[in-house]
């Protein structure tokens, strides 16, 4: 920013820090269960999530159903970051200009060939078990994305680009958000509010709590598709500096 001496910056920050600590002094004590923060919504979720949604992992239940809009907007932020990186690093160069030396040894190649499928399987497990154990859409998407990055690292960017061209991967990202959006829209068309999964009951014809848990599962699939493709795209565009849009 502007040229300011180090002492002045440290002094200002200490004043700000003291101001924050004075606020903390008056906060309810750290860690006791009867803090006001747990009374309002926290306990409601703990009591009702497992009954209403058959999802023992309360965090996934709150993430994908009670406050589903936050997750939908958050997936749009991820998609937006993907668009932004593509726009900023947009250059009409061609891939051949991006010189790359791939000298991974034979052992490395074989071991990654053995490693990538289990990683992706584990990611699908994390997605499927988002209800019962910690995990869900984001974590699955990131693990899938990093398995693609691992492939790009070991086998070279050019080969991975032939297999996963960015033109199609960005459509997968948009398709992910579209899944999430269309589930909400179906609930809207069925007569409920936007993202009210109980409206899907007439389509899925199961108990209401089971429809909600299936709704959460579909939504998590959409989220993981978007996160996977945007993480992969960001890496590809940062490493090739954009010479990939042929």
């Amino acid at each position, binding site marked *: 920013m502007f040229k300011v001496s180090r002492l002045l910056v440290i002094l200002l920050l200490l004043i700000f820090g003291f101001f924050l600590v004075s606020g903390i002094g008056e906060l309810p004590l750290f860690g006791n269960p009867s803090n006001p923060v747990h009374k309002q919504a926290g306990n409601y979720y703990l009591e009702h999530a497992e009954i209403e949604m058959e999802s023992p992992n309360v965090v996934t239940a709150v993430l994908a159903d009670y406050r589903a809009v936050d997750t939908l907007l958050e997936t749009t932020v991820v998609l937006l970051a993907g668009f932004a990186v593509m726009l900023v690093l947009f250059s009409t160069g061609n891939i051949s200009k991006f010189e790359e030396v791939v000298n991974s040894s034979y052992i490395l190649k074989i071991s990654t060939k053995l490693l990538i499928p289990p990683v992706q399987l584990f990611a699908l497990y994390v997605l499927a078990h988002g209800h019962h154990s910690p995990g869900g859409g*984001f*974590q699955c998407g*990131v*693990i899938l994305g*990093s398995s693609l990055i691992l492939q790009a690292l070991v086998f070279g960017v050019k080969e991975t680009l032939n297999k996963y061209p960015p033109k199609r991967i960005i459509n997968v990202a948009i398709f992910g958000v579209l899944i999430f959006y269309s589930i909400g829209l179906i609930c809207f068309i069925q007569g409920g509010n936007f993202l009210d999964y109980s409206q899907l009951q007439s389509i899925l014809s199961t108990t209401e709590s089971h429809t909600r848990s299936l709704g959460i599962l579909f939504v998590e699939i959409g989220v993981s598709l978007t996160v996977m493709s945007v993480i992969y795209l960001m*890496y590809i565009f940062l*490493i090739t500096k954009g010479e990939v849009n042929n």
Partner: protein
Amino acid sequence: MLALLNFVLLLLLILTAILAIHVKDNLTAVFTLSAYSFLICLVYAELGAPDVAFTEATVGAGVSTVLFVAAILHTTKRSSD
């Protein structure tokens, strides 16, 4: 939650944060930041938030370090301060 473990982890956290800022070489700074992310993932796990710890480990320690290194590849390793 072991109070001692929490205390030690938080002190280590502050140490790695200062180190990540203070180090001159960009690559070392980025790897210290990834150590910082991993430590804060341990603190979350210890505070009873496995989901957040899982995400922070994969996203913070994993992917953002790879992105930082990819960016440093195309800019400079030298940093003036």
